């Protein structure tokens, strides 16, 4: 296997009143979609800004594509693409102009520039609106244009900070497909920040969970979910001595309610159910209802941090409102 493309060691950023990033270490492998998951204020955006050399760390080392990001920030900037959390396209310019500006700033040769921009706009299905002012674009189109803008230098690494925040489910799905396609067609390494568990689950090969500046755990979604303990199977039955008979079969019960409902801790629940039903029947147990609950990343988050990720959701709503407000004011 090739060397890790991003290596971060003991990364720390201290602000006067808060330790935004606290001794974070991780690495990202070639061709991965890597995500940082955590609530607002966990230090994800600060981490991305540190990796992109926008701000300087208080302590720690960052190596990106073999370059020391602190010593050679320009190498990193030339190779990376960035879609910030907030707006990065200018509403007072057309879609085409927004991309043209960045292609010039990245120093792309003027020969073939227009064709290259048209190609990118075509790839993101924005060609028909390319000559319109960006202020007339919908939220999803703006996001796509921002991705187009980030692709203009053909980045080896793409950083996306909350790529689908504030988008409707349809637009979200379009962005997810796009990110996957980028990885498949160009082998782009994608680094995303998200507070959305579904997004992390649907998109990322590996996830680092961040809370209050610390990286609490890291692994593939499946690994992380397995670390919570497994699936919970709930059985309802009116047969007397039901719980004892289930235990006799060698299962672990977590809870047991007097009205004949028990929770079992199992692994691969969906594959287990048919066998379990069979053996319960031979024991003379009549099962009335079965339900299976697979662990979610929220359970993972709860296990490692002691709080639910949604606890910060109201915060995110506020920010979304603020973002809309800003757009309206443009």
């Amino acid at each position: 296997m090739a060397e890790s493309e991003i290596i971060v060691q003991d990364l720390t950023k201290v602000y006067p009143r808060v330790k935004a990033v606290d001794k974070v270490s991780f690495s990202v492998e070639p061709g991965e979609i890597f995500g940082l998951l955590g609530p607002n204020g966990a230090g994800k955006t600060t981490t991305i800004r540190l990796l992109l050399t926008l701000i300087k760390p208080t302590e720690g080392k960052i190596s990106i594509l073999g370059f020391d990001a602190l010593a050679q920030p320009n190498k990193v900037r030339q190779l990376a693409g960035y879609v910030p959390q907030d707006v990065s396209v200018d509403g007072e310019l057309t879609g085409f102009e927004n991309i043209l500006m960045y292609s010039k700033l990245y120093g792309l040769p003027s020969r073939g520039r227009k064709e290259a921009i048209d190609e990118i706009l075509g790839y993101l299905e924005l060609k028909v609106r390319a000559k319109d002012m960006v202020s007339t674009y919908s939220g999803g189109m703006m996001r796509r244009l921002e991705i187009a803008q980030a692709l203009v230098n053909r980045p080896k690494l793409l950083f996306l900070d909350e790529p689908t925040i504030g988008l409707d489910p349809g637009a979200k799905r379009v962005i997810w497909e796009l990110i996957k396609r980028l990885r498949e067609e160009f082998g782009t390494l994608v680094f995303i920040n998200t507070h959305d568990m579904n997004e992390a689950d649907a998109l990322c090969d590996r996830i680092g969970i961040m809370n209050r500046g610390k990286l609490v755990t890291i692994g593939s979604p499946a690994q992380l979910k397995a670390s919570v303990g497994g699936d919970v199977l709930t059985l309802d039955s009116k047969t007397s001595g039901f719980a004892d008979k289930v235990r006799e079969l060698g299962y672990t019960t977590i809870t047991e309610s007097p009205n004949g409902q028990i929770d079992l801790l199992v692994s691969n629940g969906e594959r287990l159910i048919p066998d379990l039903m069979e053996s319960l029947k031979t024991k003379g147990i009549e099962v009335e209802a079965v339900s299976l609950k697979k662990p979610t990343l929220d359970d993972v988050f709860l296990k490692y941090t002691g709080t639910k990720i949604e606890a910060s959701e109201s915060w995110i709503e506020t920010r979304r409102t603020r973002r809309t407000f800003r757009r309206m004011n443009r």
Partner: protein
Amino acid sequence: MSLKRYLFSAFTLAEFELRKLRHDTSQIWLRSVQPALWLLVFGTVFSKIRGITSGPFSYRQFMTPGILAQSVMFVAIFYGITVVWERDLGLLNKLLSTPVPRSAIVLGKALSAGVRGIFQAIAVLGLALIIRVHLSLSLLNVLCVFVIIILFGMCFSSLSMSLAPIFRTRERMMGIGQAITMPLFFASNAIYPLSLMPGWLKAIAVVNPLSYVVDAMRALLVTGDFSSLAQDILALLIATAAMVTIASLSFRKILV
């Protein structure tokens, strides 16, 4: 990064500022309201009073270069607000993630302010012609005036940009802009000659870059007396170079 690409990046930023102006020219007209009031109301009244000795030239002739400079200064000094605004929106984050050096971004933004200043100047000059202020508008003179305006716009937008990382919010920058512009305007030779000022005010006017700009433009557009032109331009060049440098240093702290 090569010097060629450095300058190319700065010019690119100015180019897109120009494109923005082309998409929406209303800003130029809106910003011409204030200079129009100065020329039409203040200028008319003060011409009647004849309280200010403007030599062989009419008072309106005397004040037009002053109002021209003032309108460019207003455009430039509020440039720091634009920078804070772009930071709040996220545009600046994106810009800083490119390989373009910070100082080239500052230079580009300063040039943009200069470009905006030129269009503001065209509006004011047009207005002056409409109200029949006699100005010597030979091609060479006008080109020289434009060069001075670009430098002046760069100088004051850099001053404003160097304050942006310190004051950080749009509201404070607004206040600072107003706190700077009016005193500088009154402590200059824009609407009355230095000879009328008390000693303390003259002392301020002499170190005020606005005075040199007005003096140079007055020489080019009205008096034709070029004796202090070289000195004026040199003073402006020094002030501009100093302000762009300070802004470049200060700009590193814009995101913290």
